[in-house]
């Protein structure tokens, strides 16, 4: 599989058509004071792709996701999105560009119901202003109903109908993860970022989550970039994998390519440095 930034994509082994480059990270370097979290990393994400970033703990995966979603601003490098260089943006502006995300340590609105949480995902699709909303009449009401329909579809899709009215704080961990995914999906994102979607889950929950991720990609054509340190799950899910270690990129390619990469094997199994 030979790719350049200019081509129109490729076809996966299971026959899915992958489009041109949607997001490109160019020579990203991120420092916290004297500590380099990411060193000169470049990679791209293509339309319709499931792209994974893997690596041992502390490799800088989450930092990379935070760069993409605007939570961290890299000292060097460029972020290109949909063919244009992205100026420095705050996280809410990135979200408004159609990039939704979940968090490793789940960031839900604990005091709100599942339905309300998922509805917040629709905020960017509501255009009525404060005055119209305050009157709660006509356009505002129509808008709420339309958005509510989208939300109900997402809730059905992720099979969380039975907990719609439950306050999130009462849900078990696995379900919280699913609600967080629902909130991100409700935004109908063009790019969905998942930060360790399977962390802390049991085998059954992991299988459910894998199925949802594949279904989302398949049904809505959503481009997905996910982080995971459990190698087994990722290899089955993703089309292409970036491998990071100590803030550097040590591998990039299909799961098979990455699996046979000597640097990657060393990073995961450990190798004696003398």
């Amino acid at each position, binding site marked *: 599989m030979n790719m350049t930034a200019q081509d129109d994509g490729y076809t996966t082994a299971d026959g899915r058509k992958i489009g041109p480059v949607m997001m490109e990270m160019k020579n990203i370097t991120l420092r916290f004071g004297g500590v380099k979290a990411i060193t000169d990393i470049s990679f791209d994400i293509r339309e319709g792709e499931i792209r994974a970033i893997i690596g041992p703990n502390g490799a800088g995966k989450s930092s990379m996701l935070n760069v993409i979603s605007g*939570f961290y601003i890299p000292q060097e490098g460029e972020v290109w999105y949909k063919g244009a260089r992205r100026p420095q943006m705050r*996280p*809410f502006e990135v979200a408004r560009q159609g990039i939704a*995300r979940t968090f490793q340590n789940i960031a839900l*609105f604990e*005091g709100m119901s599942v339905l309300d949480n998922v509805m917040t995902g629709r905020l960017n699709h509501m255009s009525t202003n404060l005055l119209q*909303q305050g009157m709660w009449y006509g356009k505002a009401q129509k808008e709420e109903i339309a958005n509510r329909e989208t939300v109900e579809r997402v809730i059905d899709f992720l099979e969380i109908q039975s907990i719609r009215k439950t306050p999130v704080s009462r849900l078990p961990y696995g379900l919280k993860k699913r609600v967080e995914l629902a909130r991100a999906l409700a935004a109908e994102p063009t790019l969905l970022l998942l930060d360790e979607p399977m962390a802390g889950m049991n085998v059954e929950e992991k299988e459910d989550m894998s199925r949802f991720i594949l279904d989302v990609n398949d049904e809505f054509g959503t481009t997905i970039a996910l982080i995971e340190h459990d190698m087994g799950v990722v290899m089955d899910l993703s089309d292409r994998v970036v491998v990071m270690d100590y803030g550097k990129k040590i591998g990039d390619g299909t799961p098979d390519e990455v699996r046979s990469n000597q640097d990657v094997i060393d990073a995961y199994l450990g190798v004696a440095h003398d």
Partner: protein
Amino acid sequence: MPEQFYWALEAAFNGLMTGVLYALVALGFVLIYKASGIFNYAQGVMALFAAMTLVGIMEGQVPFSHLINAALGTDVHHFGWHLPAVVGILLTVGVMILFAWVVQKVIFKHLIGQEPIILFMATIGLAYFMEGFGDLMWGSDIKTLDLPLPRGTNMWLDEATFNLFGYGFFINNLDMVATVIAIVLVAALVLFSQYTKQGRAMRAVADDHQAALSVGINLNFIWVLVWSLAGFVALVAGVMWGANSGVQFSLSLIALKALPVLMLGGFTSIPGAIVGGLIIGVGEKLFEFFIGPMVGGATENWFAYVLALLFLVFRPQGLFGDKIIERV
């Protein structure tokens, strides 16, 4: 005995209405505290400033007239108009929104992520600045707020209760109006936060900043919105209080009465602010009625604080506040 009972009931009624005002002031605190973790010491001064602005606008006072006259040697004091209350209130709301925007832009935007104590100190500075600024803008003399509100004792209620129970209840008209307005305001706020897009975003920000950012909520906008709402609540509280006892510096001290209300109701709960306000309002009147004569009166000055102290010892999170969980 029934006489005693009616007096107590009357005291409780009056307390209920004072309590509504305490609740309003406390509500201003809760709104800002929930959304940004800022304990806004300036809430009382905001009420004073809002009331002063309303009087100034309605009376057609020239803002900063002393300053202008001193600098330019002119002698202007009034524009020479008298505006109706509705126009005055709308313009004052505009001023409070502008105030919210400036506060966010100039102060709190630069303090994001700071310790709560630093945010608190900033609001103390803001309070004293506003106090001086208000005086400079509108003058420091005591003003009367002349709104077309009914005043005096409600004669109808007095007569009706006298015919019914043989004892006429003295209830102030203004107190009743204040109560109705406060109830409408609170109901509107609750509906707004539950059912509108901005209300949902407000609740989201109150719950988790990071998650709010990730769904595309502009925190700065929400904070300006929350400060504007707090400013509006302060205006209503300031008007009610000012209509009763004039617009003067002591008005800003109602914020101090809101503190025990917050201890009781919890800093993060809107229903808590309301229930807490009512408990303190009724409690201090009844306490004064029953216990006051035994200890020489003037219990209203300290009852609320002692009650708050008891709550701090036995239930520090208040009646409705978030439970304080400490990981060990």
